[in-house]
Each structure stands twice: as structure tokens, then as C-alpha cells.
């Protein structure tokens, strides 16, 4: 199976699963006093619509000729690329923790330096950008705009 078709298939399956999960989640929501649907109504309807669209996407991937599916962007799951993405996500998720422990300046500097190096900048250039931008962001937010960090 060609890659774009596979992409649509995977997304179709993911949305069917997501829709089904949301629908089951909403079953536990309360109804209004008169028995009419309450908090479950909207997410429930959205879940059904999402799962239906997932089925449509799946069918689209199966039925459409390959040349028409090829209009969608293709991508390859490069292992190194995914690793780099996960590293940046990890840096972002760890930021609040570091921010609490060591404060804004070192935690922001670590993040900016990490991302810049992962984007193949020379380390010394990354260091210059890190120092300048951390200082700039800190001044802009705290001094100029009065937003505490």
C-alpha cells in the first residue's frame, strides 16, 4: 500500500477510536432533571460525527485511486526526526519543572539552546542567540509589559 493511502487509513482509524472513546466517556455524564440530554449531548454528537468522518476517511483511502490520494502530503517516519521531535517535546514538558526549581532565566536558556542546536545551528551561534533572546524576552515581559515570569 502506498504511503499517502496508509496515512489516511491510520488517521481514519485514529478518529474512529477517538470518537468511540469520547462517546463511551459521555455515557457517564448526567442528564437534565426532566430526562432530556444535558452535558453529554454535544460531546456525544461530536463523537458520532468524528467517528463517521473517520469511517469516511478510511473508505476514501481504500476506494480512491492512488493518484487521487497522492494529492495529500506524503511523509516518511524518519527515526532520527521523530527522536528530535520527542526531545523538543520533552524539553517543553520539563520546562515548568525547571522553571519552578531554578527560575526563568536558566530554564528558558536551556530550552532555547537545546532547540537551536537540534536545528543544526553551530553551538557558539546557538549560545549567542540563547543569551540575547533570553535577556530580550525577560526584559520585554517583566520590565516593559509588566508581566511577571
Amino acid at each position, binding site marked *: 500500500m502506498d504511503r499517502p493511502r496508509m496515512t489516511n487509513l491510520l488517521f481514519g482509524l485514529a478518529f474512529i477510536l477517538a470518537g468511540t472513546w469520547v462517546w463511551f466517556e459521555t455515557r457517564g455524564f448526567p442528564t437534565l432533571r426532566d430526562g432530556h440530554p444535558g452535558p453529554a449531548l454535544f460531546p456525544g454528537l461530536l463523537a458520532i460525527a468524528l467517528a463517521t468522518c473517520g469511517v469516511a476517511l478510511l473508505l476514501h483511502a481504500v476506494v480512491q485511486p492512488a493518484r487521487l490520494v497522492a494529492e*495529500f502530503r506524503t511523509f516518511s517516519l524518519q527515526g532520527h526526526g521523530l527522536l528530535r521531535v520527542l526531545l523538543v517535546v520533552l524539553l517543553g514538558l520539563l520546562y515548568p519543572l525547571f522553571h519552578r526549581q531554578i527560575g526563568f532565566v536558566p530554564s528558558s536558556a536551556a530550552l532555547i539552546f537545546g532547540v537551536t542546536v537540534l536545528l543544526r545551528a553551530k553551538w557558539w551561534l546557538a549560545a549567542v542567540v540563547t543569551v540575547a533572546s533570553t535577556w530580550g524576552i525577560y526584559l520585554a515581559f517583566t520590565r516593559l509589559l509588566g508581566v511577571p515570569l
Partner: protein
Amino acid sequence: MNELFTWQGLMALIGGGLYGAIFGSVPGLTATLAVALFIPIAFFLDPVLALPAIIAITAVAIYAGDVGSVVAKIPGTPASAAYVEELYEIARRRGAKYALGISAMGSMVGGLFGTVLLIFAATTLATVAKNFSSFEYFWIAILGLTAGIFASSGSSLKALISLLVGVLFSTVGIDPTLGYARFDFDSPNMLGGLNFIVAMIGLFGFSEVLQNVFARGTVERRRVPTTAGSKALAFFWEPILLMLRNKLLVLRSSLIGTFVGFLPGAGADIAAWVASSLQKLAGRRGEQDEEAEDRVVLAGTNSNNAAVASAWIPALSLGLPGDTTTAIVLGVFIMKGITPGPLLFEQQPGLVMALFGAFLVANVVLLPVFGFLTAYIAAYVVRIPVNLLLGVIAGICIVGAYAINNNPFDVAVMVLMGLFAFVLRMGDFPLAQVVLGMVLGPILEQSFMVSAIKSRWNLVAFFDRPIAIGLMLATVVLVAAGLRIKAQAAAAERLARLERSED
């Protein structure tokens, strides 16, 4: 009025404009936040100085929301998200000054249009707004969502999925009927729902960083932007010529902006979405020319600043907030012991005149001046190598998300939204529709539930009122036109592909 043209009055306007320009340019810092942080200062100022300063802040900040779109494809406001792709492409094609020139000049004309209506028809328009009930708001939300589906240049199915995901995100937190916590995962941080500004930073900004980190060295390098002609020509004159060539579009978008803006609770975001979506749809019907993207941006910027001015119509005439900013402004009125409403025009004519004057000065003087200043800076920023710029953007995304509520949880939400958007991009799903869903979702659900409960679940009531029927018919016409245009575009593409294969 006289107080406005004293040196204190002019300083308040200039200071407000500069403050708005800086705030609007930074992702995560919105016009609403700028106004909210200005309140402690406003408390000590005379209302004739404080309120014009707020007008200058909002008028310039809404425009400055486009600076992030030009520099890094990160819209500063949900209104800017409506045409972020087009604005970014124009900046790459014709330079940042021309791109921001369309935005500033479009905002100026839209703002003036809204101001003129505010001056001459505030009371009449406010009476129309009073006739809008939850039924009409439901149909407005449906109309906006429908326009969003067909505005996507790619697959309508994928646009619909993005929209559904956005609306689903908006259901997180306390529900509007029983106050029941939905999808909160037992976290108190989730009770208030997902903040769409945080989500927007992740969806557009952080996902851009992830996309580039993922494809390091294998994706096409960003084209180096060029500036056509002289700087002032690109910023002022060429966008004015564009508007002169598209007078009807300017009129239509400004009217849409004014109409949506004066509806309490609607505001500039929805106005920009409706106007730019309609233009994208209209553009697909005709031949695609070089100015197609320019017209989409023009439609969006015309309407969002028209809405900024017209949002003051219900605030001044009825004491009802048109958007979040005017809700804060009403707080300032009360803080100063002023009662907004029809009597305001009789009891405080000086203040009302000062407000009108402030709108005129903000749109005619401040927007072009601060617009040119920000465009000048942006033109240099876009030339910074992409790997260095993206490192800084990652930092701004994190700090911007944190600064909204000073809550580390928002940073985690932003990062996860970025990862989610990165995955969606891989499947060629549009991201702007997710934001649209998050903006319109609460209006849709609340107006539906209120209407349904009000009518004792007699759903025929949704088709009973004349304005509601008009909006429903407009939705039906939009669906029919959208399907037809999409079918025509698909047929033309098939034909072109066939011709290419025969060659």
C-alpha cells in the same frame, strides 16, 4: 473632546498605541490581556484619558496580531488565524512591509467604517442587536463553522474533522447546563477548559518548531523575502491601490465586520473568520491570480477592525459588552461611576465625543504609524536564519503560554497541542479550523442548550424566527455554493492532470 487634544490626551493615545503594538506582536499576549493589565493604570486616570487609551490599545493590538503571522506563521489573535497562511505567503512573496501594509491599511479602512457607523447609527444598530436571541446566535455559529469548512483549500472532509476536533476541545471543562465537569481527568486545571490562546500558540507556533526539527535538512529552505519598491510605497501606497481595485470587497468585509461586531459576545474573531472564509470561497470560483491571497487578508483585516469599533455600539447604547475588551471597558465605566446606556449620550456628551475622536485618531494616525514601525522591524526579523529564529520562537511560545495565567499547566497544554498539530500536519489536516472550532464551540453549545431548554425541546422553534430563518437560509446557500465550487475545482484539477499526463 477638548481634553483629548491636550498633550495628556495625545500622550494617552500614543502610549496606548505603542503598548498595543508591542502586546499584539508577542504571541500569547492579546488585546484583551493588554487592556486587562492596563486597568490598574486606568483606575488613576480621568475617563476621558483612560478610555481613549484603551481604544488605541485595542485598535493597534488587533492589527499587531498579524506581525507574528508574517514573521513566523504564529497568529497573535484568533482573528489573525483566519488568514495566517495567506499573510505568511504574501510576506514571502512580496516582503513583510507589503504584507503588513495590507493588514494595517485594511484595518484602518475597516476601523473607520465601524467608527462612522458607531457615530451615526449606534442607537439604531443596538436596537437590532437586542432582537438577537440564542436561536440567532446558534445559526450564526453554524454559519461561521460552515464557512470554515469550505474556506479550506484542501479536502473538505479533513477541514470538517479539524473543526469537529476544535469544537470537541471546547467541551472540556464545566458544561453550561448543569456545571458538570467534562473530560477534566480529575485535574482542577482542566475545569476552566482549554484556553484557546494557549492552544493557538501550540497549534501554530510550537508545531512549526517541531515540523522544522523533524525535517532538519530535508525540507525546502524558506525563500528569502524581498521588498518590492520603496518601503513606504510597499506599506502605504500599494495596499491602498489594492483596496481601490477591490472596493466592493472592502465594503462587504467592513459591513460583515460591523454586523458581527455589534452582536454582543461575537466580536472581531468571528468577523474575520466569516469575511475571509467568504473571500476564499469567492476566490476559488474565478481564475486564481496573484492577488487572490491579498484579497483574503484584506477581507479579514477590514472586518476585524470594523468589529473592534462596532463592538462598542451595544456597550455604549445598551450597556452590553460586544466582546471581552468592551466587557472590561464596562467595568471601567462602573469604576468611574458612569452608567452606560442610552442616557450616556445625553449625560456625558463630552466623553462620548472623546471616544469617537479617539477611534478616528487611532485608525487614521496610530494604525499607519505604528503599523509602519512594526512592519519595518518585522522586515528585518524575517531575514534571520530559520534555525536561529525558531529557537527564539520556541522560547517565546513557552513564555507566552506561561505568561497568560502564570500557570505551568498551560505550558504543558501548549506543548501537547503543538505535538498534536504536528501529527495533524502530517496528514494534511488544516489547523486554523481547529481554532475556529474552539472559538465557536462554546457559542454553539450554549446557544443550542439555552434555546432547547427555553423552547422545552421543541426544535421547530429554531426555525420560527425571521432572522433565524434568514441565517439558516444563508447557511444552506453557503453549503450549496461551497459544494458546487469544490466540485468545479476538482473537475478542473482532474482535467489539468489529464492534460499533463497526455503531454
